[in-house]
């Protein structure tokens, strides 16, 4: 008999704040969280929406020791982990007697540190590089640094699959708990905003471009031209239900099902819809739920011309005639694309939607793309008594991952 996996805590560092309640409040108010990327003008890049969290102060969360060994991705993830530990009630005493695992989902990991380390060796010579920087050039450094900082001795792993990485980490962690390998896991995602990822995304034509040139990063909007690249870290404290009950933990929700899919026939010119449909259907099957039992969908849509359309068509196909019944939101309209953290922020906001019975709208959505299927796009926040949500993640190269979160199980 496999175990049930419940959520007993959350932690986040995002452009819309560091608490779930604040994130939800801002998403519902529709007051913007995206800055403007202006710093790469000298390298020939136009300014456009997105960028780093300007007021992130890791020393508020990571106290008593020097932060020098951690790079930005490590600081983001370890800070969000601190908040998740507090939220779940996994205190120092708990950690002294229980091995807690960590699973990180990240697209780029420590790419900025890797690149800077290499460039320093090229410019100053190989003997001038810092050994401390080298230790962060492994892609799993944020997960390892987080374990070291918080003394988490359980299974420590990292998974990478592009923008679906965070949801993959949740699925991976849920599998570890379900088959009894670990009772408690901090799972989530992190990606920092850096020049290397910005440059890669810009050159691949995935970014919206400057608003002065009609750039628009609003999901599902007729005017959309691409996404706004941003950053965040977010985690869920996952636990097997029996252990959570035994320690009297507050249960926020249940990981009821998950699935992912890759379409090997994917290419840059199409076939993006199939993997998304398969991931959603797989998650429903895994949760033993029918599409009719889903109350809302948190879309991965980020303003991408092709991927938003693919996702809309996939939702329409999987919900087979009932899609107009299910409320659909897309919170990247305000958070931008946070890659590894994206699916986790969507999950955290759904927990708040269940708590407050309000679903945030797709901020800024003015004209829905005519080519999209007729879905129930939620433009304004609305009252919704929700018990089950489908959370989508869509990658840039043919991968998709879906998660189903439901209300806490009844004892």
């Amino acid at each position, binding site marked *: 008999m496999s175990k049930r996996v419940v959520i007993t805590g959350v932690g986040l560092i995002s452009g819309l704040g560091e608490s779930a309640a604040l994130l939800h409040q801002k998403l519902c108010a529709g007051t913007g969280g995206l800055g403007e990327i202006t710093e790469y003008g000298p*390298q*020939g890049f136009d300014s456009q929406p997105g960028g780093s969290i300007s007021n992130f102060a890791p020393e508020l969360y990571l106290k008593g020791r020097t932060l020098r*060994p951690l790079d930005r991705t490590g600081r983001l993830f370890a800070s969000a982990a601190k908040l998740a530990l507090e939220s779940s009630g996994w205190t120092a005493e708990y950690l002294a007697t229980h091995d807690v695992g960590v699973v990180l989902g990240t*697209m*780029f*990991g420590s*790419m900025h540190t*890797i*690149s800077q*380390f*290499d*460039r320093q*060796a*090229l410019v100053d010579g*190989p*003997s001038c*590089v*810092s*050994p401390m920087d*080298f*230790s962060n*050039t*492994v*892609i*799993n450094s944020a*997960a*390892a*640094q987080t*374990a*070291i900082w918080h*003394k988490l*001795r*359980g*299974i*420590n*792993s*990292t*998974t*990478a*699959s*592009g923008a679906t990485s965070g949801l993959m980490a949740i699925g*991976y962690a849920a*599998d570890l708990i379900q088959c*009894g390998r670990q009772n408690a896991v901090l799972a989530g995602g992190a990606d920092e905003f850096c020049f*290397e990822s910005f*440059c*890669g*995304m810009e*050159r*691949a*034509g995935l970014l919206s471009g400057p608003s002065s040139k009609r750039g628009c990063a609003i999901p599902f909007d007729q005017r959309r031209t691409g996404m706004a690249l941003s950053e965040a870290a977010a985690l869920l404290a996952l636990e097997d239900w029996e252990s959570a009950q035994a320690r009297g933990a507050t249960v926020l929700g249940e990981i009821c099902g998950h699935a*992912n*899919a*890759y379409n*090997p026939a994917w290419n840059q010119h199409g076939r993006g819809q199939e993997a998304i449909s*398969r991931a959603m259907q797989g998650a429903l099957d895994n949760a033993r739920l029918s599409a009719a039992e889903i109350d809302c969908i948190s879309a991965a849509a980020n303003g991408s011309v092709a991927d938003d359309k693919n996702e809309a068509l996939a939702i329409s196909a999987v919900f087979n005639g009932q899609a107009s019944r299910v409320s659909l939101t897309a919170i990247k309209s305000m958070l931008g694309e946070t890659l590894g953290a994206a699916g986790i922020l969507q999950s955290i906001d759904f927990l708040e939607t269940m708590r407050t019975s309000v679903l945030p709208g797709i901020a800024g959505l003015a004209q829905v793309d005519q080519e999209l299927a007729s879905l129930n796009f939620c433009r304004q926040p609305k009252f919704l008594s929700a018990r089950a949500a489908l959370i989508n993640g869509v990658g*840039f*190269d*043919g*991968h998709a991952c879906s998660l189903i979160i439901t209300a806490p199980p009844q004892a």
Partner: protein
Amino acid sequence: MTRSAAVAVTGLGVVTSIGTGCQTFWESLLAGRSGFSRVTSFDTIGYAVHMGAEIYDFCPQDYVLEMDPAAIGRTSQLAIAASRLALLDGDLDLSEIDRGRVGVCVGTTSGEPHSIERFDDQYVQGCVSKIGGEFLHGYPCHVVPFHIAKEFSLGGEVMMIPTACAAGNYAIAHACDLLYAGKADFMLAGGADSFSRITYTGFARLGAIAPEVCQPFDRDRKGMIPGEGAAILLLERSDQALARGARIYCEVAGYGLSCDAHHMTAAHPEGEGAARAIRMAMMQSNIKPHEVDYISAHGTGTPTNDRLETIAVKKVFGNHAYSVPMSSVKSMLGHTMGAASAIEAAVCALAITHGCIPPTMHWQHRDSECDLDYVPNVARKQKVRVAMNNAYAFGGNNSSLVLAACADSNRERP
């Protein structure tokens, strides 16, 4: 832990500096051949060391048949080659099975390092404008398993687990869990890394690279030799493998993963986490210390690793540690990073199949702190029913895999 079925290893694909394909590779291991040579993939002027374990005879077009080999990075090429060899070795005809039930799970340290190294070259030359969209499509490490899935049109779960120098073990462990859970019928699981300037620079800076050869557990060992390679294991549930009459090398009986939570690059001074991973792997496999016939060591050849790994093994095995042969193939093919533990899992499978243990080469002097049986310099004929594969990584991540001969792992599980 309860398990409904065991996982069988039914195909092996390896690409290394001492041989491609498990036959050639195994002959090289038994003969004690080394793959060390002067680094050629980048200029080591300015470095205090110059040796590496690069692969020279690899022709990607021999293995990458559906995709354009020139359009993908070297790590993807190596991983696809290892996958093709594993499928051939396992005699699995993909056209006769549901490819939607075949998954891929790969570990790595650096993914496609050449992609970001070219980015950095252009950056320092002030040519950022020359960087194109191929950087994004070629660099992120997840492209390695995606490329395998694309080459062979596989529609099952596709995962990258980039947990550095222990990544191969992590990927094999997760693939087994997916098979136990019934989420796939077959998994291609393992690890891959291509020779990286960045990795070489870092280990050189740490003073961890040996000037000439890698001599694990030797009193005068001077460090590791970075290398490159890939290994992919074809995995499936044992009942399925038996039913389709597949040749079974061995079974994956269990695994243990742990984190020191101590230091980024220094292992726990008493080998606490490593010992915990070994114990977990044995407990899950229902294996007692005296039943382990061979340990494939992480054995990098650095002074600290080899000492602490010896301590961890003694901690778990007690006096019996002296009777378990433990060798490191890194003495021949260097440290292939994320591929290493996958290659070493293949070594365990071959040792079980052939009843022979590969040696630790270049061993000359006994170290008072490394006093176990390291199978020095000469391969040893010996029945191996149960093998343990250790791998450790930056961040204090520890992994141990137990592989067992098929009949032996049919025992009742706890």
